[in-house]
């Protein structure tokens, strides 16, 4: 039963108006622009903040009530999972590596989102937008906590989960999600909402929280699917906030349209690049599969995102720049990314592997135009090498894209045999990019991106060793020194899944036959 607030007979819409608009006031002894310094400097013109409507009309009292109910359900599942040793019921210990990526690369983003929304929630002059942003800020903090609680159970049994926040700040591939959010947080408030609420949450997060979480259920991980769906139910509100924000800006003033379009172009591309990790989790890290990345992309981006951009056309908004390239990428990015992580499996705190034959077959069926032609032969070659005791571990450092920070692993549009590489010269320095999209983002704001903290460059400059380490000492191994600075347990957190402690422990706990000794798999690491 709802707590009686205001008058019992107010309808939902009136009640929402009373519970939000009444919270704002104009300042008297300080000018408004001094108290709210941020919501004008991006050039977005707002004439009437009262036109902002949060379509869900969730007031704080209802918010606490329903969030409380969700929280009770979630913790009941997490507790049951822990009491019942649910980790032993998952399909395969390889699956846990997807959770490692989740706690390393996604959970910290929830915390960044919490900070971002707390900031914009303070700084919009409109009360409707402020209330919506504040609720979202609390949601994001809840997601950070519930994900950490749910995954801490796995941390008791599996490697690669013991210090995700330090890894988020230090480990090379985690600079990809980190830089995405730091870019968004250091934009203005309207750009932040366009980046996170609209481009990321509305257009792209369904890809992570729906098919991947459904995959978690399919793989017996009820704890993860429950926190995933519990988080995603908040995302439904966040998505409405994103679309409301876009509509509001577009309806307030025609001068806002080109600014918003530019942000949509930028953040669609940045979000698409970030989701490479999810593409790989879905196609390669779920031992029992629900749908391919390509199918998810078609359902949630081409179909649903297509509907959205047809709708926004009435304001003069077109689909984001790079849309066609991103749609072409649905056939490639998961394979290219997994191949890269497989090669760099000595330097990452999770395990990689060559898919089993039936898994390769599934990929051939799901990607009939590309997998057998471009990717299967590569994996078969690597599998043969591994069998022969030559597991490949790449020890050279790759060139990184200065914008998305992903190694230059993606191929040219129209030619999946050629690595895509773009260059821009700025103030006498050369900058490298993985795509036209990332190059455009840089060229539009070069002063921002010349400050990027690029892991490879930082390693070469000697900034990624513990204090007191002497790189000139005899026998110095720079890779080991960097992994030590990361806080990785070399030999436990990294290398191939075959022969790993996770693999052996899981088989022992379940009473499965012991895995074939994979010393061959590990030899490559020592060479």
């Amino acid at each position: 039963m709802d707590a009686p607030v205001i008058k019992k007979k107010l309808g939902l819409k009136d009640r929402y108006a009373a519970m939000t608009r009444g919270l704002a006031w104009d300042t008297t002894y300080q000018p408004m622009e001094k108290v709210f310094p941020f919501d004008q400097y991006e050039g977005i013109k707002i004439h009437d903040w009262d036109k902002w409507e949060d379509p869900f009309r969730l007031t704080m009292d209802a918010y606490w009530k329903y969030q409380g109910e969700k929280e009770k359900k979630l913790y009941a599942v997490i507790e049951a999972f822990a009491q019942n040793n649910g980790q032993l019921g998952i399909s395969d210990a390889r699956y846990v590596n997807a959770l490692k990526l989740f706690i390393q690369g996604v959970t910290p983003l929830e915390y960044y989102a919490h900070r971002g929304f707390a900031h914009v929630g303070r700084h919009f002059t409109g009360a409707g937008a402020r209330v919506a942003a504040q609720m979202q800020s609390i949601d994001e903090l809840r997601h950070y906590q519930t994900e950490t609680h749910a995954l801490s159970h796995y941390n008791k049994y599996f490697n690669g989960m013991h210090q995700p926040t330090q890894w988020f700040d230090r480990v090379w591939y985690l600079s990809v999600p980190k830089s995405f959010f730091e870019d968004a947080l250091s934009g203005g408030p309207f750009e932040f909402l366009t980046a996170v609420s609209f481009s990321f949450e509305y257009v792209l997060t369904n890809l992570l929280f729906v098919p991947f979480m459904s995959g978690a259920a399919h793989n017996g991980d009820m704890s993860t699917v429950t926190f995933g769906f519990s988080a995603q139910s908040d995302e439904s509100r966040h998505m409405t906030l994103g679309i409301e924000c876009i509509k509001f800006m577009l309806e307030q003033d025609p001068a806002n349209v080109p600014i918003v379009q530019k942000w949509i172009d930028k953040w669609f591309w940045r979000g698409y690049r970030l989701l490479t990790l999810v593409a790989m989790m879905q196609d390669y890290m779920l031992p029992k599969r629900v749908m391919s990345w390509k199918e998810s992309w078609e359902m949630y981006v081409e179909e649903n995102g297509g509907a959205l951009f047809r709708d926004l056309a009435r304001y003069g908004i077109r689909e984001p720049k790079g849309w066609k390239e991103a749609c072409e990428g649905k056939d490639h990015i998961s394979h290219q990314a997994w191949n890269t992580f497989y090669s760099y499996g000595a330097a990452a705190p999770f395990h990689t592997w060559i898919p089993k034959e039936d898994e390769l077959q599934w990929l051939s069926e799901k990607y009939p135009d590309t997998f057998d032609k471009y990717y299967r032969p590569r994996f078969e070659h690597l599998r043969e090498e591994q069998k022969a005791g030559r597991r490949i571990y790449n020890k050279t450092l790759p060139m990184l894209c200065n914008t998305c920070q992903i190694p230059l692993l993606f191929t040219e549009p129209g030619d999946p045999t050629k690595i895509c590489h773009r260059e821009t010269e700025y103030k006498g320095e050369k900058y490298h990019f993985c795509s036209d999209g990332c190059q455009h983002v840089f060229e539009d704001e070069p002063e921002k991106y010349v400050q990027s903290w690029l892991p490879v460059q930082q390693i070469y400059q000697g900034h990624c060793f513990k204090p007191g380490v002497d790189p000139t000492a005899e026998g110095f191994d720079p890779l080991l020194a960097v992994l030590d600075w990361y806080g990785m347990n070399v030999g436990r957190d990294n290398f191939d899944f075959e022969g790993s402690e996770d693999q052996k422990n899981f088989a022992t706990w379940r009473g499965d036959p012991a895995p074939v000794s994979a010393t061959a798999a590990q030899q490559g690491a020592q060479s």
Partner: protein
Amino acid sequence: MNASTVSAVSSVFIAFQDNEESRPVVDAILADNAQASATYPPGLVKINAPGRLVIRRETIEEQTGQRFNLQQLHVNLVTLSGYIDEDDDEFSLSWQH
């Protein structure tokens, strides 16, 4: 609206956790929206409908014989698409083009 935009009917969707609390809601949606169809990927029920989808409080109450506040949808909601219009009696999703 010009001819080229009329031709494409965009779908809206809504998805819930596949559990007992969602069942009367799903049944109500399928009863009230002739063109809606449900799919059941693991853990989920996802309902797609061309153009528009409406959820009526009254139909859910008829299914269960109990009072239902439409905002209870939040508890088992997973995701949705389209513009939302919500009051005490109806929750609808639609595109405007």
